[in-house]
């Protein structure tokens, strides 16, 4: 199962990002393990400069904003 982490210390955009991905996964009927990472040390450990960031299977694929629906579908399809 694909593991997706939303990296961000609880700002509104991070919340939206989480919801966007959850909704996209539900629509695509893809089972994902979706996690909110709010611990700063862990977020920083990923080497991102802007939140929200997204990591799929431990690899950063997105930073600094809410990802578009196309982008999210591409992660789920991979």
């Amino acid at each position, binding site marked *: 199962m694909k593991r997706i982490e939303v990296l961000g210390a609880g700002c509104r955009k991070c919340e939206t990002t989480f919801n966007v991905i959850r909704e996209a996964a539900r629509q695509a009927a893809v089972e994902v393990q979706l996690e909110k990472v709010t611990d700063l040390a862990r977020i920083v450990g990923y080497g991102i400069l802007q939140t929200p960031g997204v990591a799929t299977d431990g690899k*950063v694929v997105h930073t600094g904003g809410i990802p578009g629906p196309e982008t999210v579908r591409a992660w789920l399809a991979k």
Partner: protein
Amino acid sequence: MPSRMTLAQCQKAPLPPGTGASSGTLRGKHVEAVALLGLSRATRFGEAVHFFLYDAPKVLLLLVGVVFVMGVVQTFFAPARTRALLAGRRLGVGNALAALLGIVTPFCSCSAVPLFIGFLSAGVPLGVTFSFLISAPMVNEVALALLLGLFGWKVAALYLGLGLLVAIVAGLVIGRLRMERHLEDWVRAIHLGEAAAPHGTVRTWAERFEAGVRHLREIVGRVWPYVLAGIGLGAGIHGYVPEDFLASFMGANVWWAVPAAVLLGVPMYTNAAGIIPVVEALIGKGAALGTTLAFMMSVIALSAPEILILRKVLRWPLIATFVGVVAFGVLVVGYVFNAVL
């Protein structure tokens, strides 16, 4: 909307003294617009409505233009690129560069911590990082657009120059004090892998314009209620507060006005959008420009929520130094403005 017109249609109407720096090119038609609503500028309510109709469309249009352009410009300055430009810079040149990049690099205070650590871990000196962190929120496009719309380009340019100066000098001071030991332990212990850079693709102009529109939607979509509320409050002050009422305690001759304004500004947290229209109205009532600019900078650059976010990575001595140095810089700016203008 009665306030829509071309500049050419407008007549210049003389302004009463002390109405502020925004000159009266649009005022003539607004007298008519206000008159159409059955209001007279001789009444307080009429004067307030006039002020609102005059300022609101102009400021919102400017805001849309400036924020869009900034959204496009920001596509050239991803934070990772800014970091690469700043890594290993010496104090001095590095601080100036950091303050300038703070204007054009996209920044949101909720990203302050990852950015802070990301900069330090890539070898950007602490003082240079602070110059960036001070400049980025203080000298932002919303503040500049509003100042431009309400006060004219001279005040906007002064704000830009002095904001940069405060950011540069404060960063220099923090760098000289060698306060690295006041970082939290987990920050110093952190060892970063090579930062992921998912946005490595070449951007086309179409993509940059799209980014500009997105930025526009996001920023203006968020701040327009504050702008209107601020202009509304400003209109109220304009119509109801007696002329020169504020001169007695916010005028240039009151020595304690600037420190009081700075102190008052720290716990207050609003964005530039809400505070600037109010500031314009205050100045119309006899408040000194330096005092009000100091208040504005203090409100925008030093805010309690941001300090709490930074507390996660900085120990109190460094936080106190940061607040103290920036407050002092703002204080000097206030006095200089009052003395010169």
